[in-house]
């Protein structure tokens, strides 16, 4: 089997794993999306407690997926890890900061003796909920718009400006994707709350909020998508192997590989159907359509960023420093060893699904909040 495996295959394989993890991460950011509404959605303290406990039982999945996403990037494309994290310092540090305060907020908010009071920890949840998805979306947008860096002969990164990543916020396309991810997280958060909490008042409030958030998501997503498909992209030249600008590069990538286009379209339809079926038919299962759709859409957008001879982390300072899945990857041996480890992922997914089902088999109610021993 191993003799048939080429270095190029492994580089593609690992980019697909990274893309899948990215899709799952964006879906799981429904936790952040829900957090961003803990002051605006609930009508009373009990509803707030129910929302926080619903989300709180899933926050570790998002957190762990983020850590695994980072670890997998480090293992498979270490040059991206060193270039982006070491260069775009402030963006990543701010993202991490927002996740540190989230981790403790759930556990500490309602504990006696928490020193800073429940409201402080709720504000922590709000900060993480708003900042996390927005900044992750903005940072990922630079995969398509580029960053200003160069590398020396030892592949050490030098960021060309002193903003160290924050300059990404000055690009409208980056901000649009950041906002699209934020409003998608909020949309998915609402769909999850609708699915998991048994409270009619909260249900009607969530559906109202779902309309405005899904419209906002669609506006920013469509803006980003249209500009992406019409924009020049960072292509690896067939003739010279150098990075060149190519018109409609991402549109070409989408069309040239039909299965990616199909996944993308199914994903977008899934998200729209999940939203629609909830608003129109009052279904509570919208999250599963929108969630699967989110994973497929993000997965396909990541694929067109890295596959089809494309630079997934372009340098706008000097195109020759741009990173591709070929020049940024780990060695053949490491990618191959890691591939065997990755075969365990379906097993991991299976036990996550089983445990998730076991905990979510009953909707959260007001009564449970007073009965349950471990309440956030």
């Amino acid at each position: 089997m191993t003799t048939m495996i080429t270095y190029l295959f492994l580089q593609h394989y690992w980019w697909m794993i990274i893309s899948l993890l990215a899709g799952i991460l964006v879906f799981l950011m429904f936790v952040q999306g829900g957090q961003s509404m803990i002051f605006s959605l609930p009508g009373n303290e009990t509803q707030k407690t129910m929302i926080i406990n619903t989300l709180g039982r899933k926050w570790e999945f998002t957190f762990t997926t983020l850590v695994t996403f980072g670890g997998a990037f480090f293992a498979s494309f270490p040059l991206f890890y060193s270039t982006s994290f070491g260069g775009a310092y402030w963006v990543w540090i701010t993202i991490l900061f927002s996740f540190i305060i989230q981790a403790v907020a759930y556990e500490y908010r309602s504990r006696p003796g928490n020193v800073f009071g429940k409201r402080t920890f709720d504000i922590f949840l709000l900060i993480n909920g708003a900042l996390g998805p927005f900044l992750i979306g903005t940072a990922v947008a630079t995969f398509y718009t580029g960053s200003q860096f160069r590398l020396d002969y030892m592949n050490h990164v030098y960021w060309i400006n002193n903003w160290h990543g924050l300059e990404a916020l000055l690009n409208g396309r980056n901000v649009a994707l950041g906002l699209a991810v934020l409003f998608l997280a909020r949309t998915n958060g609402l769909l999850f709350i609708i699915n998991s909490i048994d409270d009619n008042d909260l249900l009607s409030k969530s559906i109202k909020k779902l309309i405005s958030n899904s419209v906002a998501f669609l506006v920013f997503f469509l803006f980003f998508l249209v500009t992406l498909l019409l924009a020049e992209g960072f292509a690896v030249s067939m003739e010279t192997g150098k990075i060149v600008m190519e018109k409609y590069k991402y549109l070409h990538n989408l069309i040239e590989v039909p299965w990616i286009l199909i996944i993308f379209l199914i994903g977008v339809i899934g998200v729209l159907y999940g939203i629609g079926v909830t608003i129109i038919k009052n279904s509570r299962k919208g999250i599963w359509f929108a969630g699967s759709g989110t994973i497929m859409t993000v997965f396909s957008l990541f694929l067109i960023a890295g596959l089809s001879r494309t630079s997934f982390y372009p340098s706008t300072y000097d195109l020759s420093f741009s990173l591709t899945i070929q020049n940024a990857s780990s060695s053949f041996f490491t990618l191959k060893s890691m591939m065997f480890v990755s075969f365990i992922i379906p097993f991991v997914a299976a036990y996550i699904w089983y445990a998730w089902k076991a905990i979510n088999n009953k909707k959260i109610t007001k009564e449970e909040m007073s009965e349950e021993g471990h309440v956030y």
Partner: protein
Amino acid sequence: MIEHIDVSVVDWSRAQFALTAIYHWIFVPLTLGLSFIIAMMETIYVRTGMEEWKKLTKFWMTLFGINFAIGIATGIILEFEFGTNWSNYSWFVGDIFGAPLAIEGILAFFLESTFVAVMFFGWNKVSKKFHLISTWLVAIGANLSALWILVANAWMQNPVGMVFNPDTARNEMVNFWAILFNPVAVDKFLHTIFSGFLLASIFVLGVSAWFMLKNREEWLSKRSILIAAVFGLASSLMVAFTGDSSARTIAEVQPVKFAAFEAYYDGSKNAELVAFGILKNSDKQIGDKKVKDFVFRIGIPGFLSVMTKGDKDAYVPGLNQLVIEGSDKGEYLSISQKMERGREARNALIKYKRAKMLNDKVEADVLLNEYFRNKKFNEDYFRYFGYAFLKAPEDAIPNVSVSFYSFHLMVILGFLFIVVCALSLLMLVRGTLMNNRWFLRIILISVPLVYIASESGWVLAEMGRQPWIIQDLMPVNVAVSQISAGSVMATFILFAVLFTALLIAEVSIMVKQIKTGPKQ
């Protein structure tokens, strides 16, 4: 190799990483050990069906949860700081270091995070057996996480299983098993997890002793002490055993670090191991560097020779020999000699890179065969690559005082905990523990002491290997990211304030929860 390095960036980056690691390590060992203690308690509950055991399990589980969250919070920063603050390092070793981190995420973190939700929220939702299995899986997951990050750390102390690729200018993995079963990794993993078990045991003993001093929760305290004392005694003996093995391995693969933590300056036969000592400023020098010397010490003659060479008459080189003089018999090189070889390796790389840049394929091939494909060059020269970046041999000496005190504090306290666990068990069995208020107070005092011992171990491991981030291959000043000192200083302050605030909240909640006791 690098165009410009601001020394203060290195210092701030080191400070930030040390800060994060120290805070992280306050919480992790309790998670490692308490998860198993809880699993044992729940097993007894499931087997006996006694509700008191369930109450007991839930009480310790609540404390576990308070500690667990903040351990995760500080952990995420550590992973990403390799990239944000040590980006040159990330590239140089990413091919090796990234793999254990990714495996940690896939294999261990998901196991832990999936079943911790069942553990906390599943009491009324899943069967008793499924809940018990979940609790055990949390314990296994937590300890598996430790395995992979310790494998990565051990590789930094003793790089094995890789070759240097001059084209990519990085080390690349060629033997996964050599990395996993690196002798430093085996010692480090066992020593670390057993120290975590011991810390958790002392924590449980301490809280239970407090209840006894307050004449509260007698049933809970006695059962908790029984489990913690047995678990703690077994763990403390394993800590001593693995610690000894770890020290022997360090003597072999990091002799300068070993000499530093013994403050062992001049080599001799029948070398003495310092059991206790006090250092003070002196005129003593290693090369041009002044070092502190003993004002008082209690030594065990010959023990250092036995420990390192298995023979009490064996000669053990000190810092003077390892750094300045070298070996007359050619058994080891001085740092100056290593620096010369490191410079040759670096020049070879520069020549090769220049040939590649000029597209001179013939010259590049010649250099590749002469140097990087030459086994002898790799073994005799490239292994000292990092020494090319030292300015003077004395730069290779870590802080002797910090190394010495952290090592000896850890060892002395380690022996104290063996006694504490053994006496706790003995007195409990004899039924005299509740009346021995002085001993209960000693147990209570042992709680902060075990945290000090635990942190000392990591201070020794990380400060003792300075100036290296990767032993012999990359010093810290080369590994750092090209960012301004001001940026790192700002994030250091941000994290220092945040972590301290969170620690205050954690301790306050923990104390409050202990005072409240188990729920009725």
